[in-house]
């Protein structure tokens, strides 16, 4: 449980961090909260020569609203996301999702940016980030750019982040009126990771119809994805339990579910259906102003 030796670097500014990352290339790993990277290093499954700790950077930890978007600094911890009154009021899905991550220790140290950059196939945030159509702002020594959530998750532990890029901010559009969200998750009992995690965002229309819907799925396949078949089956339709149950069946339709000690592919597919139904029902009830 002792990591291979590495050189620790603790830049004080983002610019300095980006310079270091550019200089060391793939020999360096960026350390945010350390709750994914450090366990891997202790097990020597990861052995970077340089660790660039973002812990001393100021100004990357905030949650604020600006021009119809909620901006969250990359170093904001899960606990800060979970307890943010702004998020609870305007984007409860992310706060609700953060509350489901690991345990209190993990939530107190782990960060939004760190979790997204690591892209664990069973991480919770990706489902919500996808359902919310978030944008991920990144910086490198040559400039900044934003990546749409849909384009961000590429494969197992692989994102659209380039070699010298660091996530700086996550931007979430404030939800439209009459919008309800829900994150429902089947926990792996030992690690707390999602065997299946479904984030649903639903905007209620007139006459009991579903005006808009977005479903993000994590834990089921090597990368998180939007369940577009489920969305299509619900969008513009008048909601009823049968329709929802039917639509939820497509939650893992487009993927070949993962199989491991904790859950077979068949079980994951089935649970994706069950938890999609629950998330949709709860999000819809909230969108319609019912207690759920």
């Amino acid at each position, binding site marked *: 449980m002792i990591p291979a030796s590495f050189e620790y670097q603790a830049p004080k500014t983002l610019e300095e961090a980006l310079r270091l990352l550019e200089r060391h290339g793939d020999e360096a*790993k960026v350390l945010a909260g350390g709750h994914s*990277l450090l*366990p*891997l290093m202790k*097990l*020597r*499954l*990861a052995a*970077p020569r340089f660790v660039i700790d973002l812990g001393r950077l100021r100004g990357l930890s905030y949650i604020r609203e600006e021009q119809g978007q909620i901006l969250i600094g990359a170093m904001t911890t899960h606990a800060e996301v979970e307890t943010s009154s702004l998020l609870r009021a305007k984007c409860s899905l992310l706060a609700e999702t953060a509350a489901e991550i690991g345990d209190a220790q993990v939530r107190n140290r782990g960060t939004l940016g760190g979790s997204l950059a690591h*892209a664990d*196939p*069973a991480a919770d945030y990706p489902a919500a980030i996808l359902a919310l159509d978030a944008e991920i702002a990144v910086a490198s020594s040559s400039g900044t750019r934003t990546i749409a959530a849909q384009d961000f998750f590429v*494969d*197992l*532990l*692989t994102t659209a982040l380039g070699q010298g890029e660091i996530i700086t901010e996550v931007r979430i559009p404030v939800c439209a009126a009459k919008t309800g969200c829900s994150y429902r998750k089947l926990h*792996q009992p030992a*690690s707390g*990771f999602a065997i299946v995690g479904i984030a649903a965002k639903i905007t209620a229309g007139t006459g009991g119809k579903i005006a808009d819907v977005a479903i993000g799925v994590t834990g089921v*396949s*090597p990368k998180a994805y939007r369940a577009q078949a489920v969305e299509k089956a619900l969008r513009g339709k008048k909601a009823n339990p049968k329709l929802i149950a039917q639509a939820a069946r497509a939650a893992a339709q487009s993927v070949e579910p*993962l*199989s*491991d*000690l*904790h859950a077979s592919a068949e079980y994951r597919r089935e649970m994706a259906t069950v938890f999609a139904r629950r998330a949709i029902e709860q999000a819809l009830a909230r969108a319609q102003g019912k207690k759920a």
Partner: protein
Amino acid sequence: MKLQGTHLLPETPQNVWDLLNDPARLAKVLPGCERLDPIGPDKYKVAVKFAVAAIGGSFSGTVELREKKPPKSLTVRMESRGTPGFVTGEGRVELAAKGKQTELKYSGEAQVGGLIAAVGQRMLDAAARRVVAQVFEMIASELKKAAGEG
């Protein structure tokens, strides 16, 4: 862990067969392969650096091709050990002509043990799929390159 699937490759079975039986070219299509040295008929010593993002480790061991029926089928047997554990496995590869292309069918079973299995169990399936996908991408590009040169 069971692995199986089929994959369409852009060349004839004979060309695919030639690639699989040429150590210099075989080494090019194994992701992270650092060495593939013949140590006997159809037996090679290998060193592979396996990595998915920042996670990985070095493995070394042997690869053996058995039960060869050119250009139709062969069995691959592999044994390797490394810092994060061991991987052994055996798989059957079958080649069938599909027009000018080759349908490659594979099925096998791998045993993964040690640290990598104990802590990486959750990601083994996804990691294995990724390596298999990489192998086929590299085979396809190596075949195209050879066809271009020929």
